[in-house]
C-alpha cells in the first residue's frame, strides 16, 4: 500500500544520471546519436529533448489463444537478459504470465497504462483471436479476446504480434479451424504491426525486436509480410549447417541410419528448411546451442503461414520451384510445397547465381534504410 504508482516515470536522461553519468556525457551521447542519424546540428537539440523528456517504454502484453511458449521463449533470451529488460529497458505493465496482480487489480494496471501513456505504449499480442460465436472461445475478465484487442490497440503506438499464433493463427487455425482463430493483422488496421512468427520465435529475436524499438525509437525495417528483415529475410536452408550435404546429394534416408550419425542432410525425411524463412540457421537456439536440424530432426517450418496444413512432417517436399534465397517472401507464400520432381541441381545453380544479386540488393537496401533513419 505504501507504493505510489502514479509518480512520474524517469526519462532516459534521469536513468543515465542515476547510473552515475554526468550531464556532459549525456549531451555528448546525443550529439553522437544525431551524427549517426545524419542530422544537422539543430537535430542535436531535438534528440536531447526527446531523450530527456521521453519516458521509459510502457508495454502491455496480451495473452489469447496460445500456449505461452512465446513468453517462455522471451525469458530464455541471453542478450539482453530478461531481468535487465524488465528492470531497465521497458515497463511491462501487464502480462498475465508474470505480473503480481490478479483480477481487477491486473485490469486496473492495464487501464492505467492505456490512459497515462495514450499513443505511447507498445502492445504485444501472444496468441490468436477466436472470432467464431461472438468470441466466446477466449474470454478474460468477462470480455472477449477481440474486445480486449480492439480496446488496447486503439491507442497503442505499435503492435508486436508474437509468434505464429498472433501472426498466422498457428495450430488452432489448422483445418478445420473450429474456433475461427484469427491473427492480429487480419483484425487491426491503421497501426504499425511487427509480425514475429515462429513457434515460438527465438528468444534473442524477441528481445532483439524490443531492444530495437527501445534503442532506436523506431520499429525495425519490415518485409512485405510485416516481419523484421533482420531475422526473417533468409531461408533456414541457406544458412544450414548440413547444407553442403544437400548440395552433394548426401541424405539421411531413415532416422538413426549411418547417414544420420554423420550429420547428412535431412531433406528426404521431411525437412522444411528449404521453404522456411527464419534465423534458426544463423542465430540458432537458446544462445546458439543448437537448432532442430543440427539436433537431427528436420525443420517443421513453424514460422511459415499455415505450416500445419502444408503437408505432413515426414513427407519430402519434392522440389522448391521459385524458392531460394533469391526469391522474395511475397512469391514464396504462393508456391505450394512438393509439386514436381526435377530440379534439385537446377535449384542449386540458380541459388548461387541469384545469391549474388540478392546480396547486392541487400547492401543497397541497407543504405536506403540508413538514410531513412
Amino acid at each position, binding site marked *: 500500500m505504501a507504493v505510489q504508482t502514479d509518480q512520474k516515470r524517469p526519462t532516459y536522461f534521469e536513468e543515465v544520471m542515476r547510473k552515475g553519468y554526468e550531464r556532459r556525457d549525456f549531451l555528448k551521447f546525443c550529439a553522437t546519436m544525431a551524427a549517426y542519424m545524419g542530422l544537422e546540428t539543430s537535430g542535436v537539440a531535438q534528440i536531447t529533448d526527446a531523450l530527456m523528456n521521453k519516458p521509459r517504454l510502457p508495454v502491455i502484453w496480451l495473452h489469447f489463444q496460445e500456449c505461452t511458449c512465446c513468453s517462455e521463449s522471451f525469458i530464455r533470451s541471453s542478450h539482453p537478459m530478461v531481468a535487465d529488460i524488465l528492470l531497465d529497458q521497458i515497463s511491462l505493465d501487464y502480462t498475465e504470465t508474470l505480473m503480481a496482480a490478479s483480477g481487477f487489480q491486473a485490469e486496473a494496471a492495464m487501464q492505467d497504462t492505456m490512459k497515462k501513456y495514450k499513443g505511447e505504449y507498445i502492445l504485444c499480442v501472444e496468441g490468436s483471436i477466436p472470432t467464431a460465436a461472438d468470441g466466446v472461445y477466449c474470454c478474460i475478465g468477462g470480455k472477449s479476446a477481440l474486445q480486449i484487442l480492439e480496446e488496447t490497440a486503439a491507442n497503442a503506438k505499435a503492435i508486436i504480434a508474437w509468434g505464429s499464433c498472433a501472426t498466422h493463427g498457428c495450430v488452432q487455425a489448422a483445418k478445420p479451424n*473450429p474456433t475461427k482463430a484469427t491473427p492480429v493483422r487480419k483484425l487491426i488496421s491503421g497501426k504499425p504491426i511487427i509480425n514475429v512468427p515462429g513457434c515460438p520465435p527465438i528468444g534473442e529475436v524477441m528481445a532483439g525486436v524490443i531492444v530495437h524499438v527501445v534503442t532506436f525509437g523506431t520499429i525495425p525495417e519490415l518485409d512485405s509480410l510485416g516481419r523484421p528483415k533482420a531475422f526473417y529475410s533468409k531461408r533456414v536452408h541457406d544458412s544450414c549447417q548440413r547444407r553442403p550435404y544437400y548440395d552433394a546429394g548426401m541424405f539421411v534416408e531413415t532416422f538413426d541410419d549411418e547417414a544420420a550419425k554423420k550429420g547428412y542432410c535431412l531433406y528426404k525425411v521431411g525437412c522444411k528448411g528449404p521453404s522456411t524463412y527464419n534465423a534458426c540457421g544463423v542465430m540458432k537456439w537458446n544462445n546458439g546451442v543448437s537448432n532442430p536440424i543440427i539436433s537431427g530432426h528436420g525443420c517443421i517450418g513453424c514460422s511459415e503461414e499455415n505450416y500445419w496444413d502444408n503437408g505432413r512432417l515426414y513427407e519430402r517436399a519434392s522440389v522448391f520451384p521459385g524458392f531460394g534465397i533469391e526469391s522474395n517472401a511475397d512469391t514464396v507464400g504462393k508456391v505450394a510445397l512438393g509439386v514436381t520432381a526435377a530440379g534439385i541441381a537446377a535449384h542449386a545453380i540458380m541459388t548461387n547465381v541469384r545469391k549474388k544479386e540478392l546480396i547486392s540488393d541487400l547492401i543497397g537496401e541497407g543504405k536506403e534504410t540508413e538514410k531513412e533513419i
Partner: protein
Amino acid sequence: MSQRIVIDPITRIEGHLRIEADIQNGKVSDVYSAGTMVRLLEEILRGRDPRDAWAYVGRVCGVCTSTHSLASVRTVEDALGIVVPPNAEIVRNLMFATLYMHDHVVHFYHLHALDWVDVVNALKADPKKTSELAQSISNWPKSSTGYFSDLQKRIGKFVESGQLGIFTNGYWGHSAYKLPAEVNLIGLAHYLEALEWQKEIVKIQTIFGGKNPHPNYLVGGMACAIGLDDVSAINAERLAYIKQLLDDGKRFIEQVYIPDLLAVASFYKDWGAIGGGLGNYLVYGDLPTNGFRDASSFKFPAGAILNKDLSKVHEVNMREDIEIQEFINKSWYSYEGGENVGLHPWKGETKLNYTGPKPPYEHLNTEEKYSFLKTPRWKGHAMEVGPLARVLVGYAKGIPEFKEVVDSALKHLDVPATALFSTLGRTAARGLEAQLVANWAQEFYDQLIQNIKLGDTRMANTEKFQPDTWPAQAKGVGHAEAPRGALGHWIVIEDQKIANYQLVVPTTWNASPRDPQGQMSAYEAALMDTPIADPERPVEILRTVHSFDPCMACAVHLYDEEGKHLSRVKVL
C-alpha cells in the same frame, strides 16, 4: 451475508482461469473454477498422420513444453507396438528431468513466490543480516552483504521510479505476508537469479531436441543420433555439455530452491492445515528405467490414494472403460448420449456447446455449464494430480528415497505428516520431487554413457515408421507425469490416420467443474473454507490455486449476494 468475488484473470499461470468464490464470515463458502479459452485441438487432429501428432499436441502447452509430445509418441508407439531403444528412453528421461527442474523452479520463484514474498518490504531489509541469514541456510556463493546491498539499491531505484512494471498493483503490505524483510530480500534476489538460471538448464532439451520451448520428438525413438565421430551428432562434447548443465541444475536446486522453500515454509506453517481439498490422489507413473512397458521400473510409481489413506495404494488401469471417464454436465460441450453420461477417452467426443453469457459479462451462471474443461473421474472419484500425489504415492509405497526427503522436510519444519495434505504440502512436494529428479538425472546420464561405452548407439527403431507397415486399425494409450500431474493421451488409428485423439490433462483433473453427482474437483474442494482477510485482495485464494500450478489464464469483480456489482476499489 455472503459476497461473491471474481478473480479473472488469475495471473502467474499458463492460460485463462477464472475463479468465482462466495465469501461468508471471512471464509470461502462456495467456489467455481472456470476455464475460459478453448482451441479444440482434438478436432484438428482428426484425419492427420499419427506420427505428426506429437508436434500438434506439443502446442497444447509451452510452459510444460515437451510433456505432451512425450505422451503422444508413447501413445502412438503403444498403438503400433513399437519398442524404443534404451538410449531413446534415457534421452527422453533426461529431457523430462530437465523440464521438471526448469518448471518447478520457475513455478516456485516466478509464479508462486509473490504470494508469500512481499517484494516492496524487501527494501526494509538489513543487507548484513540478510547475508548472515543466507549463509546460515546455504552454501550458495552469492550471499555477501555487498551483493544484497547492491540488489536492494537497484530495486529501490526501480520502486522509486514509480513504474513497478510486473510488480504493479500486487497485494504488497497485506497482513497475510509474514516473512521478515531479510527473507523477502533473499526471495527477491533468487527471483532474479532463477530468471537467469532457467535459461541455462533448458539447453539440455536444446541439445537433444534442437530448441526450447517445443523441442522435437520422434515416434520410435529420438532424432538425435549418437555419432562419436561427427561434429553434428551426440558426441563427447555434447555429452560433456549435458553433464555440466545437469550438475549446475542440481546445485541450484540443492543450494537455492530447497533452502528457500524450507525458510519460507517455516513462516507459513498455518498453511499446513489449509487448502487440503479432496484427499484423493492419482498417479500414472513415469521415468522408466527398464522400458516404458515395465511399469515396475518407474521412478515415479503409479497408483491411487483415497481419503488420505496412505496404508493402501490402489492400482490404476487407463485402458479400462469404467476407470477413467469424462463428464460434461457443467462443461460447454455436448455428448450424443446425453448430459450425464461419462465417456472413456477412447470413445471421447469433443463437440462444443457454449451456453454461457455473451461477452462482455460480469459473471457466469454457475448453476449451469460454466467451463471449457471437461470433468474427469477415476472410478467415479474426483482426484487430485500433481507433485503432492506423486510424492504421496511414493511415500505410501515406502520407497526409501521418498521416505527420506519427506521425513527430512517434516522434521526440519517440525510439522506432522498430516500437514502434507494442504497448500503448504503441495508446494513443498514440488520442491522435494525436483530434488529427487535432479538426482535421478545423474543416474540416467551415467546409464547413457555406459550404454555407449558398451557399443549401443541406437536411438530410433524405424521398423514400423512407414505407414504401410501398420494394421488397418489400432488404438493406444500413453501417459506422462507432467510437472502438473498425470497426463493421458488416447488415440484411435484407422487407415493410417487419426480417427480419434483425446487428451486428459492434469489441469483438467484439478480445475474442472462439478460432476453429475455434484462432486467438486480439486481446485474447488481445496478452496472451500479458505480464510479470506480482505475480499478485495484475496491473496489466500491465489496461494491455494497457485499451489496446483495451473496450466490455463483472467479481474476481481465484487458483487453482493443479490448479484449486484459492488464498486470496484482501486488499491494503489
